[in-house]
């Protein structure tokens, strides 16, 4: 049974946490580090190739133990059981959320349908990597275009970039391209540069009704048909693979049965990179690498299910976020990877966290009286230093930061020639990461106290941060990292009493866009439109005449 959620703010623990927050609101991180020399030992954890240091967060052992009690009070253990036993934790859609099933090892004998689909994808991946997937004219496929949006793009795009230095064991990677934007700006450029004879298109959509995706796919289809002097069965068979939970719609669109890869209703779009949606990742690292990523995520699943809260990385991170948002009133979080390969991680997390927890009604349908998901944004750390770090250091808003770095890098064979210089760059980047988190936390107390600073040069510090260190960026550690974020989101949702697995807020916009198409076709026929929308529609139509 999925437990009922009561109202969070009547909790006595909640009240005591608020008290603590009042008492400690001016306490400075510099003082906390002075007071407790073992602060790192008290506030860090490591497992699954990750080290998580949250000692630069503005909390103490008392606060942490209250947060842990809060997790118990919110029945977190029971909720985790519900998640992992396939209960319908997505209450508004009456679905379970079993992304964890996608990474259960085949040796357990569980989820044979999952492994059937992985094997089917593996066969296609091997065929492409060995140069034996052929276009309709018999050419080797050299370019793969992923047509998908949201979860069908952000995860694969992020992970394929992150794992670029993990080469497949055998074969040659195709070049990957991603087309998502509705207006066709990506697909038009991609198709302009590619040769239809050597191009394979992956059409990824859970429902296979996403109009952004279907319009891009239709454009690609027309492009191929023009090149081959008309559409043929061979063209569809050789140039399109479909990935969806809806086989019938794939078939209707023209995806050949043997080219259909399935996933399931119980996998949310933003949790789907572990399924066949992750095919671009498998094309980057090879199928063995993809399975390593699943194994890393599974290790994190086991960690999440088995560790007590005080040692449980996703739980601790979730609780720290709750402390920052609900008690310290820090409503923004910056994600700052100091490894350029993680450049798409901020965008991925924006979706994972904000689409999951950007909610304001409880599971029972009551409006919430407290904040939920913060605003999340980010950028590759060293580049962000030249962009918005000014605000972090000297702005008026409190922002929680999340630093990510890799301990080992450029050890791969492919870098042998220039490894020395690149290792130097890696060390420089890590040094910057450590320097920034230190300065944000300690402020000018990290600097020489003898030097007096004018007001515009002062650093007040006390901006909290968490630092995540990956032993190295490999399929396995990336899998663990992403599963960690997924579970952290779930922990927060449990504390807040919300459903993280639906996204009703994005449905209505799609619907009224259909009406707006009619308005753009004939503005004079529109009625009941607000003055702004009406004027804009008229302006656009007028300009395109």
């Amino acid at each position, binding site marked *: 049974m999925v437990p009922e959620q009561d109202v969070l703010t009547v909790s006595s623990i909640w009240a005591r946490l608020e008290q603590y927050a009042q008492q400690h609101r001016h306490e400075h991180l510099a003082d906390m580090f002075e007071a407790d020399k073992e602060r790192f030992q008290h506030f860090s954890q490591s497992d699954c190739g990750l080290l998580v240091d949250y000692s630069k967060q503005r909390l103490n052992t008392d606060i942490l133990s209250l947060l842990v009690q809060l997790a118990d009070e919110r029945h977190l253990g029971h909720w985790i059981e519900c998640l992992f036993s396939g209960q319908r934790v997505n209450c508004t859609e009456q679905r379970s959320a079993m992304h964890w099933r996608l990474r259960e090892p085949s040796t357990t004998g569980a989820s044979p349908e999952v492994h059937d689909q992985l094997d089917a994808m593996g066969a296609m991946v091997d*065929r492409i990597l060995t140069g*034996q997937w*052929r276009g*309709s*004219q*018999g050419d080797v496929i050299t370019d793969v275009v992923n047509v998908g949006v949201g979860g069908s793009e952000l995860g694969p795009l992020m992970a394929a970039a992150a794992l670029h230095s993990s080469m497949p064991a055998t074969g040659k990677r195709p070049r990957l391209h991603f087309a998502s934007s509705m207006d066709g700006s990506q697909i038009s450029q991609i198709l302009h540069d590619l040769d239809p004879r050597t191009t394979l298109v992956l059409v990824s959509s859970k429902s296979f009704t996403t109009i952004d995706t279907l319009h891009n796919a239709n454009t690609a289809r027309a492009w191929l048909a023009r090149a081959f002097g008309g559409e043929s069965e061979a063209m569809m068979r050789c140039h399109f693979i479909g990935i969806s939970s809806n086989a019938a719609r794939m078939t209707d669109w023209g995806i050949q049965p043997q080219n259909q890869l399935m996933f399931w209703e119980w996998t949310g779009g933003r949790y789907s990179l572990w399924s066949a949606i992750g095919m671009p990742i498998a094309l980057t690292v090879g199928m063995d690498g993809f399975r390593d990523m699943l194994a890393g995520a599974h290790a994190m699943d086991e960690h999440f299910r088995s560790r007590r809260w005080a040692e449980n990385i996703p739980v601790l991170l979730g609780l720290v976020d709750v402390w920052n948002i609900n008690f310290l009133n820090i409503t923004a979080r910056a994600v700052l990877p100091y490894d350029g390969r993680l450049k798409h991680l901020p965008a991925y997390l924006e979706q994972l966290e904000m689409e999951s927890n950007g909610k304001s009604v409880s599971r029972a349908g009551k409006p919430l009286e407290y904040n939920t998901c913060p605003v999340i944004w980010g950028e590759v750390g060293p580049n962000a230093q030249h962009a918005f770090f000014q605000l972090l250091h000297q702005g008026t808003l409190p922002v929680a930061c999340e630093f990510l770095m890799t301990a080992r890098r450029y050890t791969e064979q492919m870098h042998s020639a220039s490894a020395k210089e690149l290792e130097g760059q890696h060390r420089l980047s890590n040094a910057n990461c450590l320097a920034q988190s230190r300065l944000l936390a300690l402020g000018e107390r990290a600097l020489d106290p003898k030097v007096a600073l004018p007001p515009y040069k002062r650093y007040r510090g006390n901006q909290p941060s968490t630092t995540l260190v990956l032993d190295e960026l490999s399929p396995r550690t990336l899998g663990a990292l992403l599963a960690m974020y997924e579970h952290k989101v779930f922990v927060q949702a449990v504390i807040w009493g919300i459903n993280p697995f639906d996204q009703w807020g994005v449905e209505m916009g799609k619907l009224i866009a259909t009406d707006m198409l009619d308005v753009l076709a004939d503005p004079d026929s529109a009625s009941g439109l607000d003055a702004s929308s009406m004027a804009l529609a008229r302006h656009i139509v007028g300009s395109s005449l």
Partner: protein
Amino acid sequence: MQISVYGDTLCAQVTATALAQTGHDVYWYVTDMGAWNALEQGAAIYKEPGLRFLLEEQRRSGRLRYRLYSESKRLNDSRVVFLAVQPGKVSLLESIVAHHAAMPAFELAVTQTVCAVGTSERLRDGLVDSGSRAELAVMPDMTQAGRAYDAFTRPDCILIGHENEEARVLLCEIMRPYVRTRDTFRHMSLREAEFARLASSGILATRISFMNEMAQLAERVDVDISVIREALAADSRIGSAYLYPGCGFGGPGLSGDVMSLVDTLQGYDAHAGLLEQVLAINERQKEVLFRKFWQYYGGNVVGKRVVIWGAAFKPGTHRVENSPALKVIEALWAQGVQVAVHDPLALPELSRWADGRGDLELYKDQYMAAADADALMLFTEWKQYWSPEWARLRGELREPLILDGRNIYDPVFVRSQGFQYKGVGRI
């Protein structure tokens, strides 16, 4: 004169045989156990017209002795040493030269092995450093598989790289029997001889890839490339050699040399733009028959059966390295197509290459191989394929589809015999 020849290459086999034949006392050192065993059993390493008989004759005469090379074993102290090991085996060359440098009779090392430009200079520097009085010359391997013996004994041109008069005199003396009708020596520096050898391969390969690109265009614009080729060949500025389009070049020689030339260019940070394209076009061209087969069946080829005539990279040799047939066989396997092959010489090599990776039926009879096939692919223009018994072939094939990778048939005639015909660049 006592001469040692090193290597398992065709060049080594021809050099050892020809030198023994003209009266020298030759020790032939092979480095590979398999090659050694073959020689011991009276076989040749390379099956070349006439060569096996000559080899056996020299061995019986006592002027040619086989030795198995090993770094630890004492080598025969020969006056001249010919180095014809596999291309690029620089460390092997170094160790052989170092070994001889310590022996009193050693006067001249001749490198035939094709290596990156500059290798011979480094070998010579090694000799100087060791205090040996021996000199080094380059006589690049110009062996043409299929007519190796003829090319060695009646050369159009012998490139000789040397930097010393004594070396020149000694090497020309050894080669004297083969230049009786005309002096075909071209003298140059060590480095120039190496470069000239690679550059000549580069030109030949470029001509072939150029013609293959023209063939592809010819199909599009509906003209016959054979007509175009004849028109080009009639122009004395162009000439007729290496103008035949087809399913790509292979073999250890031409493709290996072009790759080596590309490596040399890259090693000097000179961009190998043209040659990289030459190789890329060639790799793509090797699959031209596969693409025609695929298009014919609209990509529905699972369970089909293909007969391949000729797997050797050219007629007259048993070698299959880089042969277009290999690439196509791998593609056919990957698509679930059964493959039957006939080749008069290359089947054992092909079988070794396949190593059980896929279904491969080998036939000694070219018609039996064709039984129930959905297409015939011709890769090597062995003479016995030029005029097959059409009616019999028609009866064997399930689908009368002929894919001619060497344009050896007359399209009009073949079609009149009831076949579908597709050549390379032909209408």
